[in-house]
């Protein structure tokens, strides 16, 4: 077992030299270039970590999982998390710890009191220790990124399945993105619940925002339509783009549902079916303003 306490003493006595060398190295790899942290912050972070590492070395030996390294690990975790959120790359984040190797090796080499064997043993101990801490940093970095992704996925899932009431008894369900089984389940539940809540007669499912309609998507759509029908609501599918229509014909998928090219057409049809119509309030007045209505004979 190597006595890493020696390193703690060397770190304490050579702090200024180690710190300046370490910061120079971090600058050299471009930690500051991105402008995401200032030089003062970097110096403060480096000094603080060096102190915590020294305390760990003095009391915890070369085992980085020892409780004495708790403060150092805590700091690395915070730093790694904040860098992950700031958009640092994994390399940039791990460089913080790995670039400390060289200054520490130099301190060991410069020390004449150590025999070559001792210096080699201590160098090895420091290497292992910093590697462990570096891996720890990356692990936290990765975890923070995953947390961000999970949060975004949840946000997307919540945002992407709204059921909108267009008029009394008329609902619209604008679908966006991929209709996998999980999302279809959410969509269906939302739609059926809203059909009950607002006593809807007609639900318009708009698929303008669905990039690909394959057989699975079609099957999910048909199931949703069938379920809505059982609840007493008729469905209209709108927003089938020309290329999707051609593709569906080739696939051999038949949507036995009323469909319209646009949401506006579908809404007009829904109004008609529920015995309503949209008319211009004063066609004559609009014409008098010099705005003839295109394609319409007054």
């Amino acid at each position: 077992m190597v006595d890493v306490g020696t390193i703690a003493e060397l770190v304490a006595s050579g702090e200024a030299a180690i710190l300046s060398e370490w910061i120079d190295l971090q600058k050299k790899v471009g930690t500051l270039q991105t402008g995401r942290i200032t030089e003062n912050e970097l110096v403060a972070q480096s000094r603080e970590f060096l102190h915590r590492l020294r305390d760990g070395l003095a009391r915890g030996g070369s085992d980085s999982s020892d409780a004495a390294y708790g403060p150092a690990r805590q700091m690395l975790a915070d730093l790694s998390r904040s860098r992950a959120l700031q958009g640092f790359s994994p390399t940039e984040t791990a460089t913080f710890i790995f670039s400390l190797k060289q200054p520490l090796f130099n301190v060991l080499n410069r020390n004449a009191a150590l025999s070559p064997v001792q210096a080699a043993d201590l160098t090895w101990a420091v290497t292992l220790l910093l590697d462990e801490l570096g891996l720890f940093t990356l692990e936290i970095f990765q975890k923070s990124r995953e947390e961000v992704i999970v949060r975004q996925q949840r946000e997307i899932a919540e945002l992407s399945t709204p059921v909108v009431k267009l008029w009394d008894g008329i609902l619209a369900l604008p679908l966006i993105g991929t209709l996998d089984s999980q999302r279809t389940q959410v969509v269906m539940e939302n739609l059926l619940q809203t059909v009950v809540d607002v006593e809807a007669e007609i639900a318009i499912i708009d698929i303008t925002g669905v990039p690909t309609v394959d057989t699975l998507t079609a099957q999910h759509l048909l199931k949703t339509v069938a379920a809505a029908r059982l609840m007493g609501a008729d469905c209209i599918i709108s927003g089938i783009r020309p290329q999707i229509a051609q593709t569906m014909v080739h696939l051999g998928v038949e949507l036995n549902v009323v469909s319209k090219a646009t949401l506006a057409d579908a809404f007009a049809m829904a109004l008609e079916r529920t015995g309503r119509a949209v008319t211009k309030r004063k066609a004559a007045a609009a014409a008098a303003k010099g705005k003839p209505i295109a394609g319409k004979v007054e």
Partner: protein
Amino acid sequence: MPTLRTDRLEIRSSDDVVRVRQMARAMALETGLGLVDQTKIITAASELARNMLDYGGGGLVLAEVLEQPGRRGLRLTFEDKGPGIADVEAALKDGFTTGKGMGLGLGGAKRLSNEFSIDSRPGAGTKVVIARWK
């Protein structure tokens, strides 16, 4: 036949099916396919990738942008090491399925492509190659 670009993707989960579609879209753009042709090959890729996942236990998709004198095309190869298909002819018929789907995927993919070939034997896996030319 010179290959301008290749890309490959492994299919292991339903997220990968979405990724296949994105890969097919990117490669179709590179090939210079029109919007309808893009949509056709993307949809065909989606069907075949899902078949591979559901029935073949996942596999590998290879996408190649090909160039011949006067035309460009996108070729997609789907290869799995699954149980294989006992009766390929029956599997190509509309409405045939051993699962819960509509039974239109394989035949649909054939109709959506300019070139289609399938090679499958029970126990030896399945290989489907489709191509769409500009």
